[in-house]
């Protein structure tokens, strides 16, 4: 048993209508890599925010090295040796690495000092990073290193990491894990939050599982199967997506040399993408974010105009068709960003149902909206995809990210499209909901639809796709059958070297 670093005793935090944490008690040892597991809304975020001084508990206490620990704000938590790397980076693209790090420090040293300190920390922990580089040019993995180094410069005793691997390639994940193990061996404890249970099994030595704000179990992830952990999180048997034997039919969607200029300054140009997707087939497209995923979805959904003779549905050129004309022909899409793109946050779920389903579900008649029918469709989506909300008249922004994601994906799937294009379908969604979304995609394909699934979650692509292709710098490599591909091969397909960067042109 390790020496105690941080003890949480009976932490409770209630918000109007929901108890986020209820009597949470556990201990993190010195140098321990401790996993915090739970579904969306289980209370993980609230708990780490409490430790980091962003949330004040209603009752309960924390002990740091045996002394009472009540951080009033993150500054106090950092001063006591707590560091946190958030899921979303807070970096300025236009500034260089050292400047970004200095911005996050209370008393930044002169730049020459800082640069040499950054260099020494990055060398010590195997995090290669040049302090003079502009952050806008860094890959997601390198950006994360900036955040980690920013924490390490404060000599933390506990490092909290929230979903750190969701944007990394397998090789980058391996590098990160080496760093974390090194930190642990030097006595820094790590509180690690992730939905990826296999990662937790390779990295963590202890796991605390939260469900509905309560600690429902602890385990040693090295000796517990991912399935068992998932079932502890969900509190019931986990359903694994099954791929009912299917036969690829005729080609539904065909891209022939699809090219398009970058739609904005930080966008990616699509370069001569060719792909054909057959009925009954799921093609998985992997790649690090920012390599043309958004642009590919926009070109397919009809949101971004493309030239003629590039996109064919059933052999028919649909390059000039509007989004609704494409939907009428059976092509539906779900972009990655839920708030403000796939859904309008200030509108109700009923209105958001109308957003894409007006054509296929015949929600309008002579231009007049049949609200009762739209509400009915929204209700169906809510029920079928287990969207946690009081009802379809609630604003989309009142839903948690994972729940809104379920709604957005469900809305497209329930329109029974013939071709479905999804980007990051399970992003931010918990294990059981992710499994049901994947199952729905498989079922859709089994019914004869062609599915294009763009994702950064390689496990997901391995699980559901029949063929896999990598998108890199706006270019799509020729797809290969998923069967027999190893994670390592895929990682190489995505761009190769462990220090990969998206190609910049």
């Amino acid at each position, binding site marked *: 048993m390790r020496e105690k670093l941080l003890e949480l005793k009976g932490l409770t935090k209630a918000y109007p209508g929901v108890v986020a944490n209820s009597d949470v008690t556990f201990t993190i040892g010195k140098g321990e890599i401790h996993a915090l597991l739970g579904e969306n809304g289980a209370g993980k975020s609230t708990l780490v925010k409490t430790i980091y001084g962003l949330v004040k508990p209603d009752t309960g206490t924390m002990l740091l090295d045996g002394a009472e620990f009540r951080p009033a704000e993150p500054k106090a938590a950092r001063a006591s040796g707590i560091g946190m790397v958030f899921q979303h980076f807070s970096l300025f693209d236009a500034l260089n690495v050292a400047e970004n790090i200095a911005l996050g420090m209370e008393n930044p040293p002169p730049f020459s000092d800082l640069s040499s300190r950054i260099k020494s920390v990055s060398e010590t922990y195997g995090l290669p990073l040049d302090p003079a580089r502009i952050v806008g040019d860094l890959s997601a993995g390198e950006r994360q290193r900036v955040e980690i180094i920013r924490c390490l410069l404060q000599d933390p005793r506990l490092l909290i990491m929230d979903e750190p691997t969701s944007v990394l390639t397998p090789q980058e994940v391996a590098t990160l894990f080496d760093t974390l193990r090194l930190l642990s061996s030097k006595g820094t404890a790590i509180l690690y939050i992730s939905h990826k249970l296999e990662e937790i099994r390779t990295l963590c030595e202890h796991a605390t599982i939260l469900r509905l704000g309560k600690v429902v179990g602890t385990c040693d992830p090295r000796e517990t199967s991912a399935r068992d952990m998932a079932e502890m999180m969900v509190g019931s048997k986990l359903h694994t997506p099954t791929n009912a034997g299917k036969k690829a039919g005729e080609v539904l969607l065909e891209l022939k040399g699809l090219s398009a200029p970058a739609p904005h300054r930080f966008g990616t140009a699509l370069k001569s993408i060719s792909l054909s997707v057959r009925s009954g087939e799921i093609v998985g497209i992997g790649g690090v974010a920012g390599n043309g995923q958004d642009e590919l979805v926009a070109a397919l959904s009809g949101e971004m105009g493309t030239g003629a003779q590039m996109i064919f549905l059933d052999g028919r050129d649909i390059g000039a068709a509007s989004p609704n004309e494409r939907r009428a022909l059976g092509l539906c899409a779900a972009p990655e960003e839920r708030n403000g793109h796939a859904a309008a946050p200030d509108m109700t779920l009923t209105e958001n149902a109308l957003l894409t389903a007006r054509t296929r579900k015949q929600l309008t008649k002579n231009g007049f909206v049949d609200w009762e029918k739209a509400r009915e469709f929204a209700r169906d989506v809510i029920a079928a995809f287990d969207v946690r909300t009081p009802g379809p008249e*609630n604003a989309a922004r009142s839903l948690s990210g994972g729940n809104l994601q379920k709604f957005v994906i469900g809305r497209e799937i329930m329109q029974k499209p013939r071709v479905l294009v999804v980007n990051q379908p399970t992003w931010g969604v918990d294990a059981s909901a992710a499994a049901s979304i994947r199952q729905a995609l498989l079922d859709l394909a089994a019914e004869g639809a062609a599915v294009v699934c763009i994702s950064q979650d390689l496990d997901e692509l391995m699980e559901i796709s029949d063929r896999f292709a990598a998108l890199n710098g706006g270019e799509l490599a020729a797809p290969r059958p998923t069967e027999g591909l190893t994670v390592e091969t895929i990682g190489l397909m995505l761009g190769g070297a462990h220090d990969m960067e998206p190609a910049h042109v």
Partner: protein
Amino acid sequence: MFKLEKRPQPSKVWTFGAPILAVVLTIILGMGLFAILGKDPILATKVIFWDPLFGEFADLDRPDVIKKAAPLILIAIGLSFGFRAGIWNIGAEGQYIIGAITGAALALSFYPMEARWLIFPLTILFGALGGLVWAMIPALLRVYFKTNEILVSLMLVYVAEVLIKAMAIGALRDPDGFGMPGSRDLRRFASAANPDLITGSGIHLGVVAALLSVVAAYIALTRHQFGFDVRLAGQSPRAAAFSGVNPSRLILVCMAISGALAGLAGVFEVTGPSGKILGSFPTYYGFTAIIVAFLGRLHPVGILLAGILLALTYIGGNLAEQSLGLPAAAIKCFQGLLLFSLLGVDLLTNYRIKLRSKGKAQ
């Protein structure tokens, strides 16, 4: 201390409560203002809000309130579509003036023919078309050359103002007017006149059109695909593009609606209450309508009430000026307070105020 907390969704109570609270606040603040100016605050408030509608001479004032409210409502309804979609037509005043010119020009070209069944509808149609065409200038420039519609539409107001002055002493000048500027009085041209439907009531066809526009806008916004697209484009432009809303078409349609309704207001005004094309025809209805649109929270029913309220403060303000010697600036200030408190109170719809007790924070 106070702390603002964003509501998970807009409060239903405050959506309706906020404007009422704003009016109450304005009256309280206004009473303070009047008291400082040495006037009886209760009396001043009564003269402004009560007398025009229910006072001793209300029979004379009420038609004025109606005549002033109708064009404000008609123009504001048109503007509300664009404003909801993030398309800023600031030049309704210009479209209003052009509508009056084109409508009057058409009517006068038939003078003195007697064929009301033909001339009156054509006059109204040309008024609407004039406003529409004038609004298409900034709209097309925006769509094809990415110019800023705020600047272009605003500058076209000044062009329209010069144009109407030129018309008053040029092409449309009354040939029997002994060289005086100004056109023939359309109220005396039976084929094109827009008189009160019931003499002395102030209710002319423009008032009917304003009420119809409120109903039509309400139906469009709540029941029709177009209203949904407008709201969606305003709230989440990317979601609108994903949904299939064509931004260029939306700009053209919204500008066309606001231009046509402003033109309508202009032609009803020139054939009715004002009667003549004159250099002094500009009335700032086009600009005041922007305030009406926002005061009414871009909602048709809100705009109806806001139009009446603003017209009331004009007429009541005049009364207070005459009978109590209240300075005109105080009335302007009072109208400003109204907009100010509404925008302030608006916060409550999306945020709630929480009391933060100092002791418990630690």
